[in-house]
């Protein structure tokens, strides 16, 4: 085994930390001249951790401190990342303490939350971090006891040597370990020996959450901190004039600040600002297009018919396939804009002092927050610090740094620390939405009901590519054309949980249901027939693993009792996104003539499941999210302003609207992939297909409750 000399460690860490795929591991004693000092309180740990590159440190008391670099927004990364480190370390989980790391681009790679990518990105390096720590601790014990390292065993934070009967906890070897050579490469555990990974470990922040301790950005207060709320311009408009007299007159308001097309009211507490903001009299004028939802419908129709498209994929001879088809099936699907609507509204703390800036708050992209602040202030990025609080949801909204930008502008203008708080109305009108999109699908069937041609044309708003051209059913159809058209809207848009696929999957899986039924085939059998083709004789590039997709389809059909009970009308859907595969079966039972949605069965292949509790959470949460927005939620515009401004009109799914959800996981032997998003895309399709099976009504637009096809369907939802 190669070793790295003590002198070169610091350089090694730096290089590894900045190289994609490189091992980054830091024990803070590596870069200390003196051995690791006592670590007791969280504050002390944080204070000591700052100068070091570190995933983990161990105190002389044997407490293991694991730093979790990626923002936690409910995906449970703050629990599952440390589980992986602790597993390879063979730590006693009871002695593990987890700390949210601040932004540190030297120490950490990809310190963001998005794309369900954290676990697949970090799996190997987290394991190595734990394994390397164990290696030097064992080497230290071997030296101190004068026994061969190979005879030493580690279990539950205890290092033992059977022959001599000696044993001790990690902390006893920390000082000696600091003198040890760090291995460049280290043996990882066999997965079958995992003791922590694969077990239901509870949320590490549970005590704080359930007792109301300050954890979230909105909970951050500091002596002397000012509060601010911001009025933003309607989309496509700019400020013509401002009358802030009435706002300034509100008791508790200290300042009104304008930057760009935004106006901030500043004061020493939140409530006066809510009142003052309403008293701002701002006149706007058009700057670019000022859009309403009716415009979007018209634009979609025009661009679907005549818009200049970009061809994303073309296989075979699409023209002749449709010419010789014995049957052609076509349909258009459309969805509305949506807000992300995390329960914790956007907020951020900024303190600009000369050429330095301190940022604290909820962000999915801390480095973007830092770069944004540096750019506004014209200062080097390293002069900006970012402390990541727990996020009260994100769903993609906090990938943007617009609210960080506001805090920076205001702090600079008033020369004081400030926390910007958005109201729910700000959140729903503040932009960066899931954009509306419209799809047209066409399928050509031969006389045997085989799909010989497939066309997809998507028209998106600021979406770039509205398709996933190498996804199923690509690879399974001889003649295929996938193209996309883009419209540049003045309404700001952004990634929303499972970008593109959050609606594309619904549209595609509903359309394939239509095609299967037109072909006279069972929807599951029809999909398997296509997958069989993709497996045995694939056409062009495949962006998915056919066997894994077949695996979830077959298992979902089995677990969901597909087609077994004539009284239960079922809908099927399967989708691959963010490296994971999820198939779902929705069950609607006719109860006294009333269609009743009773259950959704979900089968997921996300490779190895790190934490069954967290995995279940993500799958059920994704399904509830997918169902809620497919069924109920709409965001429409009138002259550049959303009409739904709070939860009284922007309808989110509630407890009584969720059916039973039965989750299953396939252990395909692969390394774990992310789960924050993949369970959401298939859900709308499974439900819509079940509604069709039960009522004969095909829902091609969302939200379902606003479609005329759904208006006389009294869908009940029951939990067992």
């Amino acid at each position: 085994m190669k070793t790295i000399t003590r002198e070169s460690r610091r350089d090694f860490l730096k290089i590894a930390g900045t190289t994609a795929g490189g091992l980054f591991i830091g024990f803070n004693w590596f870069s200390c001249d003196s051995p690791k000092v006592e670590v007791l309180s969280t504050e002390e740990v944080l204070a000591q951790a700052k100068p070091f590159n570190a995933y983990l440190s161990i105190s002389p008391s044997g407490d293991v401190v694991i730093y979790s670099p990626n923002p936690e927004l409910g995906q449970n990364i703050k629990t599952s990342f440390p589980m992986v480190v602790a597993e390879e370390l063979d730590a006693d989980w009871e002695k593990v303490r987890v700390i949210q790391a601040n932004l540190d681009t030297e120490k950490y790679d990809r310190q963001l939350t998005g794309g369900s990518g954290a676990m697949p990105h970090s799996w190997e390096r987290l394991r190595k971090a734990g394994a390397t720590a164990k290696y030097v601790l064992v080497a230290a014990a071997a030296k101190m006891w004068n026994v061969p390292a190979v005879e030493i065993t580690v279990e539950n934070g205890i290092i033992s040597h059977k022959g001599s009967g000696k044993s001790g906890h990690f902390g006893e070897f920390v000082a000696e370990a600091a003198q040890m050579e760090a291995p460049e490469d280290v043996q990882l555990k066999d997965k079958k020996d995992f003791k922590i990974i694969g077990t239901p470990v509870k949320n590490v922040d549970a005590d704080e959450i359930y007792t109301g301790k300050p954890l979230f950005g909105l909970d951050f207060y500091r002596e002397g901190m000012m509060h601010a709320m911001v009025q933003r311009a309607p989309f496509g408009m700019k400020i013509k004039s401002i009358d802030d007299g009435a706002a300034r007159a509100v008791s508790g308001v200290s300042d009104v600040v304008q930057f760009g097309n935004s106006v901030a009211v500043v004061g020493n507490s939140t409530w006066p600002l809510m009142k003052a903001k309403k008293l701002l009299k701002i006149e706007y004028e058009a700057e670019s297009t000022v859009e309403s939802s009716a415009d979007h419908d018209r634009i979609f129709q025009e661009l679907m018919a005549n818009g200049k498209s970009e061809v994303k994929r073309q296989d075979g001879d699409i023209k002749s396939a449709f010419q010789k088809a014995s049957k052609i099936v076509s349909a258009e699907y459309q969805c509305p804009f949506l807000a992300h609507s995390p329960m914790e509204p956007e907020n951020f703390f900024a303190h600009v002092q000369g050429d330095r800036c301190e940022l604290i708050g909820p962000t999915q992209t801390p480095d973007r927050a830092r770069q944004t602040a540096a750019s506004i202030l014209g200062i080097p990025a390293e002069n900006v610090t970012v402390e990541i609080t727990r996020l009260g949801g994100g769903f993609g909204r906090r990938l943007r740094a617009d609210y960080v930008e506001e805090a920076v502008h205001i702090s600079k203008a008033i020369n004081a620390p400030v926390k910007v708080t958005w109201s729910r109305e700000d959140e729903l009108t503040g932009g960066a939405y899931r954009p509306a999109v419209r799809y047209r699908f066409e399928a050509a069937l031969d006389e045997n009901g085989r799909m010989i041609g497939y066309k997809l044309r998507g028209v998106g708003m600021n979406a770039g590519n509205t398709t996933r051209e190498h996804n199923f059913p690509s690879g399974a159809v001889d003649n295929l054309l996938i193209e996309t058209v883009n419209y540049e809207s003045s309404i700001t848009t952004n990634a929303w949980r499972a970008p593109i696929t959050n609606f594309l999957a619904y549209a595609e899986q509903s359309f394939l249901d239509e095609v299967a039924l037109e072909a006279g085939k069972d929807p599951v059998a029809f999909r398997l027939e296509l997958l069989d083709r993709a497996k045995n004789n694939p056409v062009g590039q495949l962006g998915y693993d056919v066997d894994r997709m077949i695996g979830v389809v077959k298992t979902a059909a089995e677990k969901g009792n597909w087609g077994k009970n004539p009284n239960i009308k079922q809908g099927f859907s399967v989708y691959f996104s963010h490296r994971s595969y999820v198939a779902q079966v929705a069950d609607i039972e006719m109860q006294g003539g009333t269609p009743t949605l009773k259950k959704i069965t979900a089968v997921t292949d996300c490779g190895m499941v790190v934490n069954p509790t967290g995995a279940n959470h993500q799958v059920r949460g994704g399904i509830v999210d997918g169902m809620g927005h497919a069924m109920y939620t709409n965001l429409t515009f009138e002259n550049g302003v959303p009409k739904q401004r709070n939860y009284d009109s922007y309808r989110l799914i509630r407890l009584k609207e969720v059916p039973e959800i039965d989750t299953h996981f396939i252990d395909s032997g692969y390394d774990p992939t992310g789960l924050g998003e993949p369970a959401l895309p298939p859900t709308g399709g499974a439900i819509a297909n079940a509604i069709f099976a039960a009522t004969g009504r095909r829902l091609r637009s969302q939200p379902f409750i606003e479609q005329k096809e759904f208006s006389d369907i009294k869908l009940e939802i029951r939990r067992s």
Partner: protein
Amino acid sequence: MASFNLKVNGKSFQVEVEDDTPLLWVLRDHLGLVGTKFSCGIAQCGACTVHINGNPTFSCVTPISSVGNSEVTTIEGLSENGDHPVQQAWKEVDVAQCGYCQGGQIMQAAAFLKQNPNPSMEEIDNAMNRNICRCGTYHKIREAVALAAKNK
């Protein structure tokens, strides 16, 4: 500005605020009790749920002037050591995803179980339907309320 004497979590407080200030913002901005969350501000989501004389109340639409001598309990004061049966059940079931709404959910559940110690699942559903969880932890919320009812 007016002066108000408040009883929160068994302690007395005096605050100087406008009389239309919602209890939510008095708790958060003036008393430093941030466990009560702001989310919608219009009594739709329940993140701000506290108990006033034991009744579940949306503090975001409760003006401070209407509180008077009532006993206010927030998530911080639900139990001394975080061991109220509802808190224990939440921990046992591992309910939270992001966790932001859970304080309000727990306060709703605790008040409900005090009034109805042996609820049916349907009664639990009706009570908890007042609170939104954007992460979709509804199945675990039901499970935890039922467990708390069983364990009390």
